[in-house]
């Protein structure tokens, strides 16, 4: 029943109220590329809303363990909450089993955590990158309500649609003739990763300022920063 049809609640020309929307689009892009013994995951550092930039140095990567990193973009308040709950769940797992959770296990848990909020979702595009039990690089990508797929490379966030075809071509060797697909080395992956962000910053106003790159290998996680255009 509509509110206005109740006699006591007629609101002809009453005070205007601003509707409350619990979500915001804070932009940001995440790209992850997996190799045989490494994973690269990077996010831009611009946090914005509409036409204003909140901050130019907000990393969207969350280090979950020595082999797992989560990249998030979308509604920042949901991202903060999701990341905090995930970190707590991983801590509980660590204390209960006396070992850190493996990347495929984190991937499955994230999937159920997202679907648990199916009817009031976390408005976040997640990309989970890490090494599996055999030390091979793996990337899991999600939709906001918990669909999960394992891939070798993924671009998501505000520039996801812009960057994914580039990765499909350059890393997946799609739409190319007379090439033999071969595993990609880390140097080439890094160069492609930086190039994708540079081209995203040219076209997408929600991506820019700089990128944080996490390089995950068996020796641990290395961090790198790279500047983008700031307009």
């Amino acid at each position: 029943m509509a509110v206005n049809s109740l006699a006591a609640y007629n609101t002809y020309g009453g005070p205007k109220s601003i509707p409350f929307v619990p979500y915001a689009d804070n932009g940001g892009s995440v790209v992850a590329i997996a190799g045989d013994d490494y994973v690269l995951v990077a996010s831009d550092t611009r946090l914005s809303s509409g036409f204003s930039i909140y901050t130019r140095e907000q990393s969207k990567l969350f280090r979950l363990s020595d082999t797992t990193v989560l990249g998030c973009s979308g509604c920042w308040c949901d991202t903060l909450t999701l990341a905090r709950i995930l970190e707590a769940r991983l801590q509980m797992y660590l204390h209960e089993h006396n070992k850190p959770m493996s990347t495929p296990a984190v991937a499955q848990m994230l999937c159920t955590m997202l679907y648990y909020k199916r009817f009031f979702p976390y408005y976040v595009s997640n990309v989970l990158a890490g090494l599996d039990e055999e030390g091979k690089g793996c990337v899991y990508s999600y939709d906001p309500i918990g669909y999960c797929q394992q891939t070798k490379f993924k671009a998501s966030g505000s520039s996801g649609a812009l960057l994914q075809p580039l990765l499909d071509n350059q890393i997946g060797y799609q739409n190319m003739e007379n090439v033999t697909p071969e595993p990609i080395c880390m140097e080439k992956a890094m160069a492609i990763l930086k190039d994708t962000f540079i081209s995203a910053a040219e076209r997408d106003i929600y991506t820019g300022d700089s990128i944080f790159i996490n390089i995950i290998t068996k020796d641990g996680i290395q961090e790198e920063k790279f500047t983008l255009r700031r307009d």
Partner: protein
Amino acid sequence: MASVVSGSLCIPARLWQNGPSASCLFNLSDGLADQNTYFAQRSQAPITTGTSVLGITFEGGVAIAADILGSYGSLARFRNCPRIMHVNDNIILGAGGDYADYQYLKDVIEQKILEEECLDDGFSIKPKALHCWLTRVMYNRRSKFDPFWNNFIVGGLQDDEPFLGTVDKLGTAYVDRHIATGYGAYMALPLMREEVERNPIMTKDAAQKLLVKCLEVLYYRDSRSFPKVKLIFDCLMSLQSLLSTCSFSFSPYCQLFYLFLISATI
């Protein structure tokens, strides 16, 4: 609703007698239609509001500035609504948006501080902890569709390092060297970014000058602003002066600034 069958002396009452009859569809609205259970109206709009809040970090401290007007729509209704609070010796908190929500949270925070002081263990909440706590409070209320309609700026000293963070009504939170909310995000923030880029290690005086300039610009263009403002500093430098008030005027349109200096006792 099933009719009530009363028991007599010879026929005992049925064990299950008040519920819906089996094999019939139960119409929920029968009993509930008279009660208004269709909706609950939450605080869907701010009423008395404050406009922009500005915050900046400088060498050894932070400063937060806001005017003291409480607007009622476009009406400049309350002209003495200070909305920067001094939480404890190393935290200051500025608020924009609904004034009632701010006052409610101010009471909650003051109670927290009081309970902490009662423990008398020498520990007091630090700015990062308060910022994190505020994030959760705001996010929980937005998840109930009953938000606190505010923008907060938390400033202070985290182990002698300047800290400046913000939270909005959704729980969106971040930390930066300079933060402005409301119209300040459009008009003051570019000025602040320019100045910080040119002069990354800012002195207290330079920060104060910059904030005053920003407030002046905001007063020219933000119709919900007011020429009386409150600036609060939280820094290591001014150790002896507590609440020393000084005033100065910067244009024929403006009356004066109230400047409160609050020293940190380290």
